[in-house]
């Protein structure tokens, strides 16, 4: 009797930490932050509801608006550049090159490092006096302003470059594995029909890779929304507040400015953005899956 009771409860005891993490840690934190975002909490939490006051204030705060805008600009820049570069590199790697694993190892190694490391490395690489752009300027190539880190209108590009360097390898891996799953018969048919390879890529293969593009983009988007250490280490949000990002806004309002209510409203805004993008991502992927299913049933 007792034996059976123990056998029946062991799964529950074993899974207790996971259940606690989900309900208390994750859902509890999310619920608590959502609640706090509707209160007038300052440096200490208050539990009296005041409606959307924090959200109204948040969207009147210049620094938040700049942070949000920067987040979108970084996301667009990083996703566009990484997809373009990652696709070209993956296609190049897919041409039966020798030393493929060496190249792949090189493209992916930045991903193994901390974002703090990446930020500090690029702070030095983009140094106004000694940096790469200064070297290019020295040999007459001045298409890149060597002062990029000190210019409010350009400093965001430094973050985009560092992000692309850090994350492009992952996109290469994702796209390469999608390329490898393309049916070899397609290539055989193309060869028989005399269709040039570039034509195949543009009209047949790349459209087939859409799910991989969606996945890579969504992962990059999550990375950009969470971006914190890189900005802290590379620009510190400056010059001025020109490279501030939402996560840094949240940290500053939680721990330095003592305004939990405003920080909570900022958190919930990010939650909404991630939720919407996640839904769009799922819909796009499902649509691809659905079309595939229809194709298959038609043929």
């Amino acid at each position: 009797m007792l034996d059976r009771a123990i056998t029946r409860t062991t799964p529950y005891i074993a899974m207790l930490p996971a259940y606690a993490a989900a309900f208390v840690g994750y859902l509890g934190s999310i619920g608590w932050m959502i609640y706090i975002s509707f209160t007038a909490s300052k440096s200490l939490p208050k539990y009296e509801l005041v409606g959307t006051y924090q959200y109204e204030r948040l969207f009147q705060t210049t620094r938040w608006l700049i942070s949000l805008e920067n987040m979108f600009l970084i996301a667009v820049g990083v996703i566009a550049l990484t997809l373009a570069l990652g696709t070209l590199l993956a296609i190049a790697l897919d041409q039966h090159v020798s030393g493929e694993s060496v190249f792949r190892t090189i493209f992916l190694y930045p991903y193994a490092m901390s974002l703090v490391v990446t930020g500090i490395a690029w702070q030095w690489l983009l140094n106004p006096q000694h940096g790469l752009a200064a070297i290019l300027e020295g040999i007459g190539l001045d298409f890149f302003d060597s002062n990029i880190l000190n210019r409010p209108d350009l400093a965001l590009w430094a973050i985009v470059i560092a992000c692309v360097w850090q994350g492009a390898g992952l996109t290469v891996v994702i796209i390469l594995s999608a390329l490898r799953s393309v049916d070899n018969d397609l290539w055989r048919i193309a060869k028989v029909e005399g269709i040039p390879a570039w034509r195949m890529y543009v009209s047949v293969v790349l459209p087939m890779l859409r799910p991989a593009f969606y996945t890579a983009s969504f992962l990059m988007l999550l990375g950009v929304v969470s971006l914190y250490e890189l900005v802290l280490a590379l620009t510190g949000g400056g010059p001025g507040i020109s490279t501030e990002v939402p996560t840094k806004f949240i940290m500053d309002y939680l721990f330095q400015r003592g305004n939990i209510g405003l920080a909570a409203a900022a958190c919930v805004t990010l939650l909404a953005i991630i939720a919407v993008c996640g839904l769009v991502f799922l819909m796009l992927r499902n649509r691809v899956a659905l079309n595939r299913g229809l194709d298959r049933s038609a043929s």
Partner: protein
Amino acid sequence: MTTDDTAELAGASIAAHTKSTRLRRRAVAKAITYAFLTLWAAAFLLPLYVMLVTSFKSMDEIRGGSMLALPQVFDPSPWVIAWSSACTGIECGGVRVGFWNSVVTVVPAVAGTLALGLVSGYGFALSRLALRKVVFIALMFGTFLPWQFFVFPLGRIYSAVGIYGSLWAIWITHIFFCMPITALLFKNYFESLPAEIIKAARVDGAGFLQLLWYVLLPMSGPIAAVAAILNVTLIWNNFLVGLVFGGREWFPMTVQLNNIVNSQLGEKAYNVNMAATILTAAVPLAIYFFSGRWFIRGISAGAVKG
């Protein structure tokens, strides 16, 4: 020679000609492919190269010469300073203190993450517990959100329990953040095993934990290695958890590095900074270069974080 023969010869020569142009074109394409890959490989390696050469130069040489030049005199002293005496603005102990803090953080945190991830992944894959799907989705969704979302509520819980500012807070937070993705790895692995193995063990009367301990665990070596590599990298590279929950005493290497580099006023000691940066990146880089494919397997599952 008949006209037919001539035509045949002409045809053959045209065929040979198109074949040779095709071959030549293919060779050109191959050359362009390699040139493209090599160029970008060089671009990706450039930052590491610059960091390395900078770390061995004297400040005079850095000021006077090009960033890309090899050091004229190899000077190891920046490394010594970075390791043991660089200043953070508060203290001057180099990244050494942070290194040992990171070691003390990573080992128990990874052990805890693996243990909990194993048991939870097993439970998600093979138990029929109520709400397990809801719990799993909540954990996965939680890993999508920025960690800033959780620092304040978690901090309040830790304060209430009295572990804020201790190693316990750091360990628990790391386990909390890394367990879902680890559970996902184990869950997918257990679900990929042939159902007969599990059925046979159940017929033999194995209970919930016996099945895990005697049957599944001995087969889990490779996936455990993948999970360990992923978690060591994630936790070593993390910045936020040690910054917020541990207090100054337990700052990990990443925080120490940022404090050393970004608290310097006036001209920065670039050589020392680059040595400190490479030292901070050394552990995950070594793991990466030695583990190769296993690392890739881990990140393709764990790419949502880090």
